[in-house]
C-alpha cells in the first residue's frame, strides 16, 4: 500500500509542464579565415547589437605578464589605422548608440548597440579593431594610468573588493586562474610595446573570435556586410596558446584572515568544482539555487531571517572553461561572531549532504531554474552575448534553446551527491574578512 501512495504522489507532484519557450532562431557560418559568425534576427525594435567575442582571457596570459587580456579591453578603444585616437566611442555616440566591453578569466567581449540602420558602422569599427588597432606607447601609457585608477576604485577601495583574488590565489597553485583578471600592476609597468604588439598578433585574430549580431537585421544583407568587412582579415600565424594545466586537488582546507576597510565582517568559502557544461556542474549550480536563491532559500532563511547572523548571504558557482570554484559567502551582522556565522553556513551545507531534499523543495528548484532560463533572453544585446558564449565554451550555440534540459536532468540525489563530493571541508578555502583594527 505504502508503495502505491508514494508512486501516486510522485506522479502528481512531479508533473512538470515546461513553459512554451519561444525558440531563438539563428544562422551560423564560418569565414575562410576561421572567423565564426552568428546572426539572430528580431525586427521588433529597430536596434542591433554588434559584438565580437575573443577567446582570450586572463588564463591565456604569460604568468610574468598578467593583466594583458583586461588591458587590451582598454587599449582597443584607442583607435586604428583609420580611426583617430579618441574617436572610437565618438562615432558610436554620434550615431545614437552605446558601447562597452568586458573581460573574464576565459574571454574578452566587445559590443555596440546601435540603431539598426547603423549596422555597417558597428562592423566597420569592429573590423578595424581586429585588423589593425592602434597598439602603441601613447595609448599604452594613457591606459596604464586608467587601469591603475580602475584597480584602486574597484578592488582596493571597494569593501571586500579583494575577496576574489584572495580566494583564487589560495584555491589554485599551478593553474592560470590563480592570478586576478586585472593582473598585477608591476607586470603592466614592466611590459614593453612589443609585448603588447605580440599579444595582439597572437590572440586578436579571426580564427580566435566569434562575431555575434542580434536585432533588426536582414540575414542576407547582414551576412554580405560581415563578409565585406571581415573576409580578408588574415588568419593568425601561430597556434593559439591554450593552457593545458590540470590543477591537482586542494589537499586540505586552506584558511586565512584578511583585514579590510569594511563595516561588517564577512565569510567567503570557495569549494573547488568541475568546469561548466559537465553533468556535475549543473548539479552544483542547482545546489547553489537551493542554498541561496529567493527569500525561502536555505541560507537566506536560516542566517538572515531566523538566526539573524548575517545581513546578506549567497552561493554561486563561477562558470569557467576549466574546473572552477563555487563561492558561499555571508556578510556577518553587527555583534555576531564570525566563526558562528561560518558554522551556520557549514551547518546548512551539511544538511544538504545528509538529509534528502523534499519533493516539494526540489520542485521549487526546478521552477526557479526554469524561470531564470526562460527570462534570460529578453534583450537582443543579451542574446548576442549568450549565443557567442554557448558557441565558444560548449561548442553549440543552440544551447540557448536547449540547455534547460540539462538542468532538468539533475535529480535530488545528484544534488546530494555533488554536495558530498565537492562541498567538503578539505576541498575548500575559507576566508574571514575583518574590519581593520586601528592604531590607538
Amino acid at each position: 500500500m505504502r508503495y502505491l501512495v508514494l508512486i501516486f504522489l510522485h506522479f502528481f507532484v512531479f508533473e512538470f509542464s515546461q513553459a512554451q519557450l519561444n525558440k531563438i532562431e539563428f544562422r551560423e557560418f564560418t569565414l575562410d579565415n576561421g572567423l565564426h559568425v552568428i546572426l539572430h534576427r528580431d525586427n521588433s525594435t529597430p536596434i542591433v547589437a554588434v559584438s565580437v567575442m575573443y577567446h582570450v582571457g586572463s588564463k591565456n596570459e604569460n604568468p610574468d605578464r598578467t593583466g594583458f587580456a583586461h588591458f587590451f579591453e582598454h587599449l582597443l578603444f584607442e583607435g586604428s589605422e583609420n580611426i583617430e585616437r579618441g574617436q572610437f566611442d565618438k562615432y558610436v555616440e554620434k550615431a545614437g548608440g552605446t558601447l562597452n566591453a568586458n573581460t573574464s578569466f576565459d574571454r574578452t567581449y566587445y559590443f555596440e548597440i546601435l540603431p539598426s540602420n547603423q549596422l555597417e558602422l558597428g562592423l566597420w569599427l569592429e573590423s578595424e579593431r581586429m585588423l589593425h588597432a592602434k597598439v602603441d606607447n601613447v595609448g599604452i601609457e594613457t591606459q596604464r594610468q586608467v587601469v591603475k585608477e580602475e584597480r584602486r576604485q574597484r578592488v582596493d577601495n571597494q569593501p571586500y573588493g579583494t575577496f576574489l583574488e584572495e580566494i583564487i590565489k589560495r584555491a589554485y597553485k599551478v593553474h592560470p586562474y590563480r592570478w586576478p583578471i586585472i593582473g598585477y600592476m608591476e607586470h603592466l609597468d614592466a611590459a614593453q610595446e612589443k609585448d603588447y604588439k605580440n599579444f595582439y598578433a597572437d590572440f586578436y585574430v579571426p580564427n580566435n573570435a566569434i562575431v555575434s549580431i542580434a536585432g533588426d537585421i536582414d540575414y542576407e544583407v547582414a551576412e554580405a556586410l560581415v563578409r565585406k568587412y571581415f573576409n580578408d582579415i588574415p588568419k593568425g600565424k601561430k597556434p593559439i596558446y591554450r593552457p593545458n594545466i590540470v590543477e591537482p586537488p586542494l589537499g586540505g582546507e586552506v584558511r586565512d584572515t584578511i583585514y579590510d576597510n569594511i563595516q561588517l565582517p564577512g565569510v567567503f568559502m570557495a569549494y573547488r568544482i568541475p568546469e561548466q557544461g559537465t553533468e556535475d556542474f549543473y548539479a552544483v549550480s542547482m545546489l547553489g539555487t537551493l542554498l541561496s536563491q529567493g527569500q525561502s532559500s536555505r541560507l537566506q532563511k536560516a542566517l538572515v531571517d531566523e538566526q539573524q547572523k548575517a545581513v546578506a548571504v549567497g552561493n554561486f558557482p563561477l562558470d569557467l572553461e576549466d574546473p572552477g570554484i563555487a563561492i558561499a559567502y555571508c556578510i556577518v551582522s553587527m555583534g555576531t561572531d564570525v566563526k558562528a556565522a561560518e558554522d551556520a553556513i557549514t551547518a546548512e551545507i551539511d544538511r544538504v549532504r545528509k538529509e534528502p531534499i523534499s519533493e516539494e523543495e526540489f520542485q521549487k528548484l526546478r521552477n526557479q531554474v526554469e524561470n531564470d532560463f526562460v527570462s534570460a533572453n529578453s534583450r537582443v544585446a543579451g542574446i548576442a552575448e549568450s549565443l557567442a558564449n554557448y558557441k565558444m565554451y560548449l561548442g553549440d550555440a543552440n544551447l540557448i534553446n536547449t540547455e534547460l534540459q540539462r538542468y532538468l536532468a539533475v535529480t535530488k540525489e545528484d544534488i546530494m551527491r555533488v554536495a558530498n563530493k565537492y562541498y567538503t571541508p578539505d576541498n575548500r578555502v575559507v576566508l574571514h574578512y575583518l574590519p581593520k583594527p586601528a592604531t590607538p
Partner: protein
Amino acid sequence: MKRYILFIILGGILLFFSACAKKTTENIKAVSTADPAKAWRKNPPVPAQARDINLGEYSTFDLANGLKVIVVENHKLPRVSYQLSFNTDALVEGDKAGYVSIAGDMVSKGTKNRSKAQIDKEIDFIGANLSTSATGIFGGSLKKHSEKLLEVFTDVLYNPVFPEDEFEKIRKRTLSGLAASKTDPNAIARNIANAVNFGKDHPYGEAQTEESIKNITIDDCKNYYKTYFKPNNAYLVIVGDITPAEAKAQAEKYFSKWEKGEVPVQKYKVPQGPEERKVAFGNKDGAVQSVINITYPVEMKPGNPDAIKVSVMNSILGGGVFSGRLMQNLREKKAYTYGARSNISNDKLIGNFTASASVRNEVTDSSVVEFLYEMERIVREPVTAEDLQLAKNGLAGNFARSLESPQTIANFALNTFRYNLPKDYYNTYLQKLDAVSIADVQMMAAKYVRPDKCNIVVVGNKDNVADRLLRFDSDGKIDFYDPFGRPVVEKKVEVADNITARNVIEDYIAAIGGMKKLQSVQNLRTVRKATIMGQDASFETVQMVPDKYMMKISMMGMTLQEQKYNGTKAMSGQMGQKQVFTEGKEFEGIKSQSVIFDQMEYLKQGYKLELKGIENLDGQDCYKIVVTKPDGDQATEFYSVKTNLLYRALQSQDSPGGPVTVTNEYKNYKEVGGIMFPHTIELSGAMPTPIVMEISEIQINGPVDKSIFDIE
C-alpha cells in the same frame, strides 16, 4: 545562465567593465594603409535608411470600482508581470518621517492567511518575484504560474496584518541604514539640497532621522494602508504574454471585489527658488573630497511643452556619455573630478535643477567657479549646430533602445493617464526632438538655468573648505546644516580676550596634576579592555622616559598588532609580520608614542598652537586648539572650558582607502597616584563601530622589564 545577480551587493567584480576608456591625449592623424583596394575602409560607412520607430500598442479598461487597467501584449517571452501603482500624493510626515516607506514594506510581511515565511515559500516555489512599497505592488512570473502569483499578490493587497516582530526588524534595519548614511557625503548632500530647495514643510524637503524612525508606530503604518490602498486611487499595469481578453478576465477575477474608498488629496505650497546665491554647507570631518550640488527648484510637470527642449539643452550642458560641457571642462580639461553632470527633473509637484560633482578639497572653490561659468555660458552663447546634433542623436538613440522593453510602453501609457498627457505625446517625441533649434536651446537656458539664483550645497571638510566658499554667497554668510538637513544653530561663544592657546594647555596640565607631578612619572603602564565585533580585546601600553614605548593589541589570545620604539628604531607588527623603521613617517609616528604626556611637548619649541574659538560638543563648551607638530602634522583638540580637561582629539591617519580622521574621546577622568586619567576612551573613525576602551590596569613608576622594548 548567469548567476551573478545574487552577488551584486559585493560589487560583482567577476567581470571588469571598462568605462569606455577615455583619453585625454591629443588626436594623431591616422596613418593610411597603402593598399588602394582598401580605400573604402578609410571612412565610416554611410548609414542605411533609418527605419521608422513604432511604439508598441496598449489597451485599457476600467473596473467598476475605479481601478484603471493598462495591458501591453508582448509574446516574446512566456512571462507576465503585474504592477499596481497608487496615485497617492506625497505626504508631509513630520516627526514620523519614514513611516510611509515602512508601511509599504510591511504590506508583504504577513497576511491573515500566510506568515512572511509562507509568502516567501509560495513565491519562490513558482520561481516568481513579488515586492511591495508605499506606492505599489509588483509581481512577475512565468505565464503558467500567473494565477498562483495573483493569489498571493491579492492576499498581500487585501489582508496584511502588520506583525510586530517584522515591524521591529524593519525598524532596526532602517536605523542601521541611517547610521551609515550620516557619514555618506552624497546622502548628506541630498538631505541638505532637499531641505534648502523645498523647505521642511514640503514632502520633498523632509528627511528621515533616528528620532523620526523611533516615533513610528504600527498603527501609523496600518492607517496609511487603510487610507491609500484603494482601487479608485490605482492603476494596474499588465505586461507580457497575455491577450487583453485574458487580462480582463484576470483583472475581474482578482481585483473587482476590492472596495473603493475616499482618498484624501493633499495641497502644497509651491516651493520658490532662492532670489540670490546661497551657500549651504554640511560638515564631514576628515573628508578628502567635497560633494558639490548646485541646485534649485524648477516647475516642470511631466508633459510640459518645454520638457523636450530642456532635455536637449541639459544634454549639452551636462548630459551625454562624455560629451557634456561640464564633463569636458571639469574632468577632461581641469581634471578636478571623475565625473560632472547636470539634470533637470520632471515632477508632478516640483522638479529641480542639479549640477553635481565630487572634487578634491583644494579645488572645491575652483570647481564652483567652473560650474557657474558653464551655466552662464549656455545662457549667454548660442550652442553650435554640431553640439545640438550630437545631443539630439544621443537622446533619440536612448529613446529607441528603451523601446525594446515592453515595460517602457507600459510606462508611457501610465504616464499618459496619470499626468493627462496628449494621447500622441510619446508617438510624436522624435519629431519634437528633431524640431528643437539653436534658438530653442538658448531660450530654455535663459528660462531654466540660474547661475545667480541658486543653492550651492557643499558637503566636505569645514575647516579646509568652507571659508573659501564665502565669496559665492550673496549675503556673505554661509548656512550650516547637519547630516539630515537641519540648520546648525551656531551658539557663538566668544573667547575671552586674555585667553591664549598656551593658557589652555597650561590649564590642562594643571588640571590633571600639575607640571611637577607629571615630570615625576618615569614610566607608565596601562591595560585597556574593549569589545571588538563581539570579542574581547586588550590594549597594553608601556611608556618609559625618555624614549621607550611598547604597545600590544591582543584578541582571542593572539597578538593582533604591536608597536615598539627603543630609542633609535621603531617596529610595527601586524599578525606576525614585522617591519622595522629607522626614518620616515611611520618611524616618527611610532616614536611620538613614547611621550607619556603629549601636552608637555606642546609647550616646547617647534610646536605651533592656535586657538580656533569655542565650540559646543555634546553640551559642553570646549576650546578648539590646532596643534602643528615640528614635522608639520596637525591635530585638533578640544579642551573643556569648565574643567580644562581634554575632551576630544582628532587626527588624520593614512589608510589603504585614503586618509581617515581618527577621533579619540576622553571621558570618566579619575585620579590615580595624583594624576587624572580618562578611564574611558572612545576611538572612532578608524573602524565603522567605535571602540570603547576601559582602563583595567594602570601602574605608575612600577617595575618594568626593559627587554620588552627590544627590537630584533
